[in-house]
């Protein structure tokens, strides 16, 4: 189901934008190098001490909010969700038993057009790493010791502790939706290690992280003055045949501000499994 779905969106976007769409099979924009329309982004903003300062509001490049605004704002990257969706719905990971059987069942169910249960539809926090899809947008607030990233979706915030060198001992680590994140700088790259994500946080087709020992390694870096990339690697030798790699790309949007989104206000048409009903 995933591939046809992505294909459908790519085709729709291609139809919408006419010939010459430059999107690779994995959703990565190809073709001419990006040139910026919105002027200089946060770079060369720097924190005291010289590290990059990404404080501000970012949206998935060409993603949901930009789909309604026509072109993405970056030449060579179309408006629409073609760029965002492959990130939200990446290639299935290679998993070990018994997880691969569970994943296979879910993929087959989805291919039959069956709706999968969804904790997100029940308004649970998105959790890591899926929250980094940042489907509406992400507010970054930085101090030298804390990088806070808030998702407009569900108003969920994660904090990356820059002043810690290690995670708490396993018997003191409390599983949470965002997990426990520690970060350090390698030049202008922010490297983050996250552990302690709740085992019931879904990350792929409703599958949960099988247990709390998965490490989520992220490398945040800018590829242009107003483009931030989060390269994500999931590492868990008990679960994955090989580390599962994906990337999220964000576009700096100083013209927008984060808004509150409280899902429980009027969640009127989902059943107890998070499936839609009418």
């Amino acid at each position, binding site marked *: 189901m995933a591939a046809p779905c992505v294909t459908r969106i790519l085709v729709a976007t291609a139809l919408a934008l006419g010939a010459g769409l430059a999107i690779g099979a994995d959703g990565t924009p190809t073709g001419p190098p990006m040139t910026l329309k919105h002027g200089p982004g946060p770079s060369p903003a720097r924190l005291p001490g010289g590290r990059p300062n990404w404080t501000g509001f970012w949206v998935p490049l060409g993603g949901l909010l930009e789909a*309604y605004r026509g072109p993405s704002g970056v030449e060579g990257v179309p408006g629409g969700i073609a760029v965002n969706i492959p990130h939200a*719905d990446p290639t299935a990971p290679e998993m070990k038993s018994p997880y691969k059987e569970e994943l296979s069942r879910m993929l087959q169910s989805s291919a039959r057009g069956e709706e999968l249960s*969804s904790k997100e539809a029940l308004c649970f926090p998105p959790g890591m790493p899926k929250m980094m899809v940042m*489907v*509406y947008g992400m507010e970054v607030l930085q101090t030298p010791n804390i990088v806070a990233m808030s998702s407009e979706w569900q108003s969920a915030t994660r904090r990356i502790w820059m002043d810690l060198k290690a995670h708490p001992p396993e018997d003191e680590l409390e599983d949470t939706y965002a997990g426990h994140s520690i970060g350090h700088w390698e030049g202008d790259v922010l490297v983050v290690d996250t552990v302690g994500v709740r085992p019931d946080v879904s990350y792929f087709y409703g599958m949960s992280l099988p247990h709390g020992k998965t490490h989520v390694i992220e490398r945040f870096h800018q590829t242009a003055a107003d483009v931030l990339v989060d390269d994500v690697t999931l590492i868990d030798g008990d679960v994955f045949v090989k580390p599962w790699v994906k990337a999220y790309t964000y576009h700096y949007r100083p013209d927008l501000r984060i808004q509150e989104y409280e899902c429980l206000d009027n969640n009127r048409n989902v059943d107890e499994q998070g*499936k839609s009903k009418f």
Partner: protein
Amino acid sequence: MRSKSFGWIMAALLSCAGVGTASAHHSFAAFDTTRQITLTGVVKEFQWTNPHCWLHLSVANGEGQAEEWQLEALSPNVLGRLGWKKNSVKPGDKVTVLVNPTRDGSRGGALISLTDANGNKIGGRT
């Protein structure tokens, strides 16, 4: 070009909303995104709420009797950035809407666009 683009992208978005996080919330599987119908009626209620806005519309059936339709829209944070406001439509307003109807035939659907009595589209590109 842009409104056409929006329609195509929106159709793909809604048809796939169940598997990604494009909807950010729940699947739109209850709606038949291969079909579009036009309804004209009088606004009974407009709920400017998360996770979705809802428009309750009183529509006359073929026999002239009023029937209530319940139409699901996107969330205030998206609609607001399209130019919608919480009072863009009010009870008593006569409006025309384009919707993806429910699969089960119940009187409801996913709102694609809304035009007021003066022919103005709310939100520009919807």
